[in-house]
């Protein structure tokens, strides 16, 4: 067999583009696999010249999947620029809105995107390895899953008053208080949301028990882990310091997110438009780390809500107290975080300040520079703004979760391709595993726009001279 290059390239979005190329050796094994990303075309440049108070309105338009994360990170950065720390009730309401985003995004991912692989199997006929198959397997569960996502989405709507393009968070606070009626509506959905998530956890744990061999060879990577923590090193999604632990779980740093440039540098590879962030002091590639659900649970010592903490104890036992390295456990971590987010919603709604109308600080102490950090569902999100004395932005820096996990996704694709191809014919099941290596991280590749049409998923075989010798493809929406 001659050396080959295989390309898996979904081409659908006008913005948000990724492909996988797998370079084959002459013996049919994989030499190396690459994950290429092109997103955020010029968005930072586009924001320069805009007023800082506009940023919470502009940046949610980056993405239709996690607009709330951008909205809140922008508001936090704008708080800093304007020198307007929000009053406590506003912080609680922002946190509540954020939990809604986490619940709907994580719920959607587990039950509708990852669930078919896990519940029905990687090698199952793709015609039924989807939500249809899930419904056939368990219609009641699928309905609960839809309702879980709806619960998260309704939290966002009740809190912010809008379904799309939120205007809720503003520099210094928020522009809408929560009514007692809306609090009651959210509270009414909590018990069912917890039950659904616990069903998901049972499914995930049962699957893990039966598929341990796959878990142990599917992209098991050593890295650092990165995420916001509470003062007690508990899991935190809205605020707090950033904790970075090494591959043994030992704390390397715990720092204020405002100082991220002292700790993070970005590596550039010629084959990807997306940079590779790493921990400066260890250098590239020793300083690589992972973010998102798996990164956050590994970077935390505990979870400060009771049901999620019980799951956290099991998590910490998976690798004898050391960080969990298995990429497929991202799915378990995602469900544990969902449970935490629902419990957090309950706690926030019980807080006496949650119905307060003291929601906006109008006094300013202009600083001219600000960093907003938040844990988006798929990882740590940084918004960093510099403004002139009129509040007009002169520079913008965004580091998004998909960027932090660029190394992880690239390594996962490489590892899975090397593990599963092994000179065998390239099957749909193999392709699905390569996709699953990316999917586990829930990357945010679908930015902004979409169009009707088909998205070919192609595998192209190239000979050593670069000539195309064979193409496999399947059309997907």
């Amino acid at each position, binding site marked *: 067999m001659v050396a080959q290059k295989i390309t898996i390239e979904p081409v659908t979005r006008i913005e948000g583009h990724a492909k996988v190329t797998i370079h084959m050796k002459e013996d049919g094994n994989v030499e190396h696999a690459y994950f290429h990303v092109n997103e955020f075309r010029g968005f930072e440049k586009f924001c320069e010249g805009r007023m800082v108070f506009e940023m919470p309105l502009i940046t949610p338009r980056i993405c239709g999947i996690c607009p709330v994360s951008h909205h809140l990170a922008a508001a936090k950065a704008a708080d800093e620029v304007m020198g307007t720390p929000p009053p406590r009730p506003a912080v609680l309401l922002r946190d509540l809105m954020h939990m809604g985003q986490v619940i709907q995004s994580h719920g959607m991912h587990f039950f509708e995107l990852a669930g078919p692989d896990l519940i029905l199997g990687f090698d199952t006929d793709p015609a039924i390895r989807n939500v249809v198959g899930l419904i056939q397997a368990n219609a009641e569960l699928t309905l609960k899953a839809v309702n879980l996502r709806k619960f998260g989405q309704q939290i966002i709507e009740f809190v912010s008053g809008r379904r799309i393009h939120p205007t809720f968070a503003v520099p210094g606070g928020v522009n809408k208080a929560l009514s007692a009626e809306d609090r009651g509506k959210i509270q009414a959905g909590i018990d069912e949301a917890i039950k659904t998530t616990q069903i998901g956890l049972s499914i995930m744990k049962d699957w893990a028990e039966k598929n341990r061999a796959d878990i142990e060879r599917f992209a098991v990577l050593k890295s650092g882990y990165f995420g916001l923590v509470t003062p007690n090193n508990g899991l935190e999604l809205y605020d707090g310091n950033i904790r970075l632990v090494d591959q043994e779980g030992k704390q390397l740093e715990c720092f204020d997110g405002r100082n991220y440039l002292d700790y993070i540098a970005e590596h550039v590879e010629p084959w990807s438009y997306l940079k590779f962030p790493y921990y400066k002091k260890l250098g590239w590639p020793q300083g690589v780390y992972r973010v998102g659900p798996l990164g956050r649970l590994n970077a935390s010592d505990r979870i400060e809500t009771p049901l999620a903490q019980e799951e956290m104890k099991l998590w910490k036992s998976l690798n004898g107290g050391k960080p969990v390295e298995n990429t497929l456990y991202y799915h378990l971590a995602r469900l544990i975080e969902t449970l935490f987010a629902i419990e957090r919603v309950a706690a926030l709604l019980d807080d006496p300040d949650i119905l307060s109308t003291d929601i906006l600080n109008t006094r300013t102490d202009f600083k001219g520079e600000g960093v907003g950090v938040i844990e988006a569902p798929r990882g740590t999100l940084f918004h960093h703004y510099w403004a002139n004395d009129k509040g007009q932005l002169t520079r913008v820096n965004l580091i998004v979760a998909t960027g932090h996990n660029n190394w992880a996704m690239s390594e996962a694709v490489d590892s899975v391709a090397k593990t599963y191809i092994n000179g065998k014919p390239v099957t749909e099941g193999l392709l699905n595993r390569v996709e699953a290596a990316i999917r586990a991280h829930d990357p945010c590749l679908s930015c902004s726009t*979409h169009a009707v049409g088909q*998205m070919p998923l192609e595998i192209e075989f190239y000979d050593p001279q670069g000539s195309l010798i064979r193409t496999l493809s399947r059309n997907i929406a």
Partner: protein
Amino acid sequence: MAATIIIGYGNPDRQDDGAAWHILAGLAKRLGQKVPRWPEEVFDLSGENTDLLFTLQLTPELADTISHYERVCFVDAHTGSVPQDLNITALQPHFQTSPFTHHMTPETCLMLVDSIYHARPASLLVSVRGYQFGFSHDLSEKTQVLVNQAIETILAWLG
């Protein structure tokens, strides 16, 4: 509740990708309903015969909404990968995967309606070709012409 819902989706910030919002706004005017000033304002879900709903993308929970209607029309924009400038397609429930994203197609949405809620509303997709996708709320001239045609097409479908 009205018998028909028209669901437009797309990104109004990216010029022709937001054609659906312009189509819905045109329909609202012709149907004597309140016309939102911008996409963030919701259309009234109180039409006597027809409800209008705009969203950035289709999501699973829309299946619940759709299941309460007898007819649904999805409205979108498309690129040159669809040959017709004005594309009108009767839809059937059918799952279409999207391996990396949270995006859903109308057929998948209908599949959820059918499978979970055991409802099969008569379904249509009307999409117009987009030509320009810059950072603008204004449609290109070519797409604006198609938007007007799409409004007439949907009004005829509504009867």
